[in-house]
């Protein structure tokens, strides 16, 4: 409850601050529109050559794409600013003030900077997803759509946990841009249907590096139904990833050297 009230302050601050950068606001809308067009365009070109990929037809792929675009927009709005700043907070020793406050430091550094200027993108991607579902010729029950939405949110959570875990390498490696970038590279796996991956790689992508759970598994549940085993699997992976993050975070703080001013 208290953390929710704190979050309202973060929201207020970020809205009043983002008014300062008008251009950025429009540029972001512009950039993300291009990003959405490129992703949809890519699958459009691809499906002009084949009827199905990994068992999905074009209409299904569009919903999948809309799913990961929405996930990206949520991440951009809620987490991205914080994630960008995190390595430099660690390297420049600016974590100090957060550490002395009687509030979870992890909470603080993860959520304090809400990207108000990406808010429109959030609306746009919700629109794209709604459009993708509306144009889908098959039958999609409200229950499966609800399951899809919940799984997508779980995907957002996993995305955040995985991302920040990579970033925390900054506690040990002072120039860790490469390790941090690695997350974005691994994330590319999540932007293709997970059915195309074979063998142990698929196992890895649904467990250790659960990027398939971001958007592909939710879409899979939407088309093929969500069974108990899958639901339990998602919950288990989410809890496991969270425990790992908490562990890495506490080890990281031990190694934190707080660059002397």
């Amino acid at each position, binding site marked *: 409850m208290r953390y929710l009230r704190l979050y309202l302050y973060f929201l207020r601050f970020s809205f009043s601050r983002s008014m*300062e*950068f008008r*251009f*950025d606001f429009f*540029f*972001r809308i*512009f*950039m993300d529109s*291009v*990003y959405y067009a*490129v992703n949809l*365009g*890519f699958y459009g*070109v*691809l499906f*002009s*050559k*084949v*009827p*199905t*990929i*990994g068992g999905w037809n074009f209409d299904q792929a569009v919903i999948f794409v809309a799913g990961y675009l929405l996930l990206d927009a949520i991440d951009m709005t809620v987490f991205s600013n914080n994630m960008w700043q995190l390595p430099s907070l660690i390297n420049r020793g600016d974590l100090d003030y957060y550490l002395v406050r009687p509030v979870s430091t992890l909470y603080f550094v993860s959520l304090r900077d809400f990207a108000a200027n990406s808010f429109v993108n959030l609306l746009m991607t919700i629109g794209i997803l709604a459009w993708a579902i509306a144009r889908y010729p098959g039958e999609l029950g409200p229950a499966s759509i609800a399951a899809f939405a919940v799984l997508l949110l779980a995907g957002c959570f996993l995305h955040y946990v995985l991302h920040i875990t990579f970033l925390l390498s900054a506690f040990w*490696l002072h*120039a*860790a*841009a*490469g*390790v941090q*970038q*690695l997350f974005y*590279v*691994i994330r*590319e*796996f999540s*932007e*293709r*249907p997970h*059915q*195309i*991956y*074979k063998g142990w*790689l698929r196992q890895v992508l649904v467990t250790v590096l659960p990027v398939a759970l971001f958007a592909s598994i939710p879409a899979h549940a939407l088309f093929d139904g969500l069974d108990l085993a899958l639901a339990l699997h998602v919950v288990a992976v989410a809890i496991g990833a969270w425990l790992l993050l908490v562990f890495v975070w506490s080890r990281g703080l031990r190694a934190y050297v707080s660059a002397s001013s």
Partner: protein
Amino acid sequence: MTPRLFWLVYSTETRKLMTYRVDFWITAVLNFVVSITVPYFLWTAVFESAGMATVAGYTLHEMVLYYCLAVLLGRVVRGSDQLRDISTDIYEGSLSRYLLYPAGYLPFKYAQHLANLLPSVLQLALLGPAIAGVIGLPASVAISWGSIFLALAAVAIGNALYYLMSFTLQTVAFWADNIWSLIVMMRIAASLLGGLLIPLSCFPEWAQAVLAWTPFPCLYHLPVNALLGKSTFAQAAAGLATSLAWCVLFFGAARLIWRRGTLQYTGVGI
């Protein structure tokens, strides 16, 4: 700018780069492996689904090779992705320092940019042959001195073009605060329209005809296909000529905007 100064800027910049030890190897190998794995599985699924030996003029083997080269050559074309320092210089005011140097800003920055290319070139030199060894060259692909020469020319022009495009975009920073999103946008657009995400021959005919007149194919499509011998000499030459024209155009635009911008530059922060 004298060649000696150019070299000095270049080597200083290279040294800065080398200090990132872990980074260097991780970026090099892991990024490459992942960026190949995704298209590999994707295209395996596509070829299975299509049930044909070739899609858009490539066999699966050639397709995988295409992506390997597009990633490796593309890195050399783009240089490091730290293409934001010009706009940073402008709105943080550090441009003032450069304006005092008796050397042109653009060549100075381009020297730094070329230095940041070194790791990408090293990766190409190390990973390129390694890939050829691992996955083998299909019989249909003939890499000759001629194709290597054409590819090098395409990479050089592509590098200059990409740099000029991003330079021009970044000069918007004279008027707007935060322009990183424009740079990202350009990169995203180029990845689809230049042939990094998917070979341009997958596009419908009309789209290919239009794309041929844009600056994008020179970034990925031309270098890779020139090297693989997939495009004829005439096609490659026409593409390079178009790209050169774009270079001239962007150079002119950059200079014009630059002059306008510096006139009203206030040198914030210094």
